[in-house]
């Protein structure tokens, strides 16, 4: 019954019907009677003291309902926004924790910082009134340059709470041991790199709407959130003080997040808070320019790395020093990204026995930086995979061979790395072999020669990534300073007529849960997929859950669903045993039917469900009626997807334009539920990775602190014609510790691709004497690099 829709089938996405016909329901679509509209006045300066704010003229503008400033919030004793992950520095001290007011009180710290909230009868009236607010700023010097953040005399973002702009100075590994290994090395490869800052650009901008019910005292907040329960928890426990049971958070259809919608933001907080003061619902949707300015940005590292190798080219040790940008305030999970999600990944796929990493987190007068698709793992992969390729180039050995020589051997799993993680499973050599086959690595030199005859420089680049995802064992997260559990919840709720609602604490904002999770349940319970409805995103209907990020939904949320399904089957067996007058021990469940082995007795699941709701012939003495089971699943380890990507580029030396002409990705995601959905995730991820490598760059003006790449006129989003058709492959080693044997696939593409692309660029330009091209390798940056190499050659 379920072969075409069960585990492993390419079931078309159920949600596409409404998304592609314009019938999705997003926050902005909500019809709310008597709604008002919020508009936020934002700082035009990167750093300034607010001397005064005069709202008097604005208040009397047509349609204005109310105007709030930072002072109103402070007077109402609203808490600040929180950073939910305590990272302890190398002396064991918790990170510096500067205040993050919901609206600026007396200082603005980046262009886009919130200064006032206007609530009016329409969006345009709110905007008109915002223009009439007079703010007297005393403009101060600002610093947006990460590399200079700790220099003497550089403007401080929070001088009192974080002197010298330092949030923490953190380390992992034993420095002396690593230094000793370097002293014995036959070869050392060194590298200075910048991991460019990115702006997430979800298709749907952030939005919030809130309604306060005076009669019950209940608040409802609709938000573009990836994790509505966590948002409610933060707002309740730390910021607004509305008791959790009096606040309902709904994240309806959400048009992409990529991490940027995990966090608790000012605007949704304000909209919720103000809804009771205004006494009417409030709606807010970010304009695209606001999204550019104020969505938490991603990446933004400056790194020096060194790799030590012995005479046989085995890796001896890796040393990494990174400065990570936090922006002007600490966003919800910002502190964890460049530490526990970054440095713990620095072993990659290799047996490097000694690793030391030092990470300093810096404040700058820029938008907050937090998790963005891959969160720390793309940055780690970029360090490892570019330095390994650089070492291969320096040693003049084959780049694939050097990788293979240092891979963790298949028989060594579970494998304890020197940087805390224990990889549960993996089998790397077949992955790279398959990638080499698909990419026709052997034929590359022929293609390079052919390209040369057309005046093009062709290069090839590898990236063999590992990631830890499926966040995560709560105990480990707690030990590392994380403020929340990381289990997931599920509820399988049958209706008397036999169809079923699957409620999940995960949230789908592009990941296809409504399809994939339905496949799981349909396959496991042997019921038609059309009878399964996946429900998510509403704290009032779904069990408390942690939401979707870190490629965790299937590995953790899917596992919870499996556990709940097991409970359904166990209960069904008891009912069926009663109906068949058999012993429970003799009842088996097969293809949706309870049977007594060796007889033709048979009770379909639907019949057991009906009996549970209409218990006229039912063992009521021993068994509760109803068929509704809950499960919580806390994983015993992270999952460790791994893979190899091979990218081929052609560069036009006259213009510096880099074209990706071939891109291969072979992944081990464990068992695969819906190959089409997985391929979609990989495609999107690779495009984001190619975007980071060649196109995207968030640039602030060093003098003024203005965001120069603040619109699509200047921020280069990847387009379909920027990438070729991808060639994908799979090698499966099932995850040994979750019931589905699955790993995560949501971030892999973005994690691996930047290094593959940049290694290909370096390979293409190597004949010109180029050893480093800054990322992104835009036409300008490639052309300038070529010019520099030519000048050097001429000297």
């Amino acid at each position: 019954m379920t072969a075409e829709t069960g585990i492993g089938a390419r079931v078309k996405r159920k949600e596409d019907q409404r998304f592609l016909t314009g019938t999705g329901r997003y926050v902005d679509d909500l019809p709310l009677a008597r709604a008002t509209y919020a508009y936020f006045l934002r700082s035009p300066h990167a750093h300034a003291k607010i001397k005064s704010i005069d709202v008097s003229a604005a208040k009397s503008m047509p349609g204005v309902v109310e105007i709030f400033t930072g002072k109103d919030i402070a007077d109402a004793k609203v808490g600040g926004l929180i950073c939910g992950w305590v990272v302890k520095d190398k002396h064991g001290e918790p990170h510096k924790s500067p205040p993050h007011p919901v609206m600026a009180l007396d200082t603005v710290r980046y262009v886009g910082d919130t200064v006032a909230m206007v609530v009016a009868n329409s969006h345009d009236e709110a905007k008109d009134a915002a223009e009439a607010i007079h703010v007297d700023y005393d403009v101060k010097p600002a610093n947006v340059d990460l590399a200079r953040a700790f220099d003497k005399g550089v403007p401080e973002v929070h001088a009192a709470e974080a002197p010298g702009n330092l949030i923490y100075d953190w380390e992992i590994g034993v420095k002396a041991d690593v230094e000793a290994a370097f002293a014995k090395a036959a070869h050392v490869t060194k590298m200075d790199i910048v991991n460019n800052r990115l702006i997430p650009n979800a298709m749907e901008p952030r939005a919030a709407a809130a309604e306060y019910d005076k009669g019950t005292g209940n608040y409802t907040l609709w938000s573009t959130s990836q994790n509505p329960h966590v948002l409610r928890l933060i707002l309740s426990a730390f910021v607004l003080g509305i008791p959790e049971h009096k606040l309902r958070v709904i994240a309806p259809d959400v048009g992409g997040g990529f991490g940027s919608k995990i966090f608790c933001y000012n605007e949704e907080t304000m909209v919720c808070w103000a809804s009771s003061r205004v006494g009417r619902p409030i709606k807010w949707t970010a304009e695209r320019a606001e999204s550019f300015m104020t969505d938490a940005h991603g990446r933004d590292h400056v790194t020096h790395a060194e790799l030590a190798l012995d005479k046989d080219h085995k890796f001896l040790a890796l040393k990494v020093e990174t400065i990570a940008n936090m922006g002007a305030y600490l966003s919800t999970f910002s502190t964890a990204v460049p530490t526990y999600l970054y440095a713990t990944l620095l072993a990659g796929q290799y047996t490097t026995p000694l690793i030391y990493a030092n990470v300093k987190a810096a404040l700058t007068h820029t938008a907050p930086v937090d998790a963005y698709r891959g969160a720390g793992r793309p940055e780690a992969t970029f360090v490892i995979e570019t330095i390994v390729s650089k070492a291969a180039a320096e040693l003049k050995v084959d780049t694939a061979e050097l990788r293979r020589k240092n891979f963790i051997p298949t028989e060594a799993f579970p494998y304890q790395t020197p940087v805390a993680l224990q990889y549960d499973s993996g089998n790397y050599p077949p992955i790279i072999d398959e990638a080499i086959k698909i990419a026709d690595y052997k034929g590359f030199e022929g293609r390079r020669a052919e390209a040369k005859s057309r005046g093009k420089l062709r290069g090839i680049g590898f990236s063999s990534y590992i990631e830890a995802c499926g966040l995560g064992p709560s105990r480990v997260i707690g030990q590392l300073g994380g403020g929340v559990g990381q289990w997931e919840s599920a509820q399988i709720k049958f209706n008397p007529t036999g169809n079923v609602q699957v409620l999940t604490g995960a949230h789908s904002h592009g990941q296809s849960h409504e399809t994939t999770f339905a496949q799981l349940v349909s396959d496991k319970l042997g019921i038609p997929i059309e009878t399964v409805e996946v429900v998510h995103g509403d704290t009032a209907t779904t069990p408390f859950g942690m939401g979707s990020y870190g490629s965790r939904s299937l590995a953790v949320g899917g596992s919870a669903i499996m556990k709940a399904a097991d409970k359904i089957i166990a209960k069904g067996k008891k009912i069926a045993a009663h109906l068949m007058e058999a012993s429970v021990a003799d009842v088996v469940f097969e293809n949706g039917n309870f049977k007594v082995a060796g007889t033709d007795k048979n009770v379909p699941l639907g019949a057991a469900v009906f009996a549970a709701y209409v218990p006229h012939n039912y063992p009521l003495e021993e068994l509760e009626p109803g068929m509704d089971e809950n499960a919580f699943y806390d994983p015993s380890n992270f999952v460790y997807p791994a893979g190899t990507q091979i990218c081929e580029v052609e560069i036009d030396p006259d213009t510096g334009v880099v074209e990706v002409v071939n891109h291969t990705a072979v992944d081990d995601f464990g068992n695969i539920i819906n190959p089409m959905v997985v391929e979609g995730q990989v495609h999107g991820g690779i495009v984001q990775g190619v975007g980071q490598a060649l196109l995207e760059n968030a640039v602030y003006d060093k003098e003024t602190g203005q965001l120069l790449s603040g619109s699509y006129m200047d921020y280069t989003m990847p387009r379909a014609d920027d990438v070729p058709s991808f060639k994908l492959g799979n090698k499966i080693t099932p995850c040994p510790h979750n019931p589905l044997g699955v790993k995560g696939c949501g971030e892999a593409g973005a994690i691996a691709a930047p290094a593959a692309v940049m290694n290909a660029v370096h390979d293409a330009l190597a004949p010109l004497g180029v050893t480093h091209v800054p990322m992104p390798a835009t036409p300008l940056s490639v052309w300038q690099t070529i010019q520099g190499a030519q000048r050097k050659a001429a000297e």
Partner: protein
Amino acid sequence: MYDFAYHRPKSVADAVALLKGKEEARPMSGGMTLIPTLKQRLARPSDIVDLGAIKELAGIKVEGNNVVIGGMTKHGDVATSADVKANIPALASLAGHIGDPAVRNRGTMGGSVANNDPAADYPAAVVALNATITTNTGKHTADDFFKGLFETALSEGELITSISFPKVEKAAYIKFPNPASRYAMVGVFVAKTAGGVRVAVTGAGPCVFRVKAMEDALAKNFTSAAIKDIKVPADDLNSDIHGSAEYRAHLVGVMARRAVDAANK
């Protein structure tokens, strides 16, 4: 956007009358530039005079040695016009690479030329082909029309009604798109007509400009080799996060040579 009064006249005369009588009236053709400007509150016109219903402004005709294109003619119509393709294929190809399909189905030649965005494509064609711009009050030569950054010879209330392009012997436009916006970062239009050889550059400077040294060299020898050593000074060129002035100056040379090669194909 701010409030404004909206008008949709049926004739050029009515449009001109509406523009004259108002405090700060603006004509609108495709709105592809004007509407984003309004939405960003960068302009506050009292009146918008939509030229979309004026039949006499749209359409393409061949008149003797010229192709005459109405001000309201959409980029998409220029790109697919058999007359343009037969007589000035480079112009059809240029129009086919402006923006995306939605922009090409709304944006117009008159709007683009009147706007004179330094990164717009059409100005390079108008100058390289030595086109004549006709307005409700008279005619402008291409060389006198583009005055500077977003500045033209149009006076208050003056409307572009059509632009007349001579047929070409050889011509090509090669554009190096800005990676983000895909407007021209450097676009070079090279044309050989009965009137001689012209090379016009858009995107690189504050306003479209000609490269006389290249024109002279190509007049003698219309090959890319003839201009390979001609450099454009970087001094007055644009510089931004996508291209320094030096890079743009370099690209002018590369795009010009590629345009000559394409024209010779």
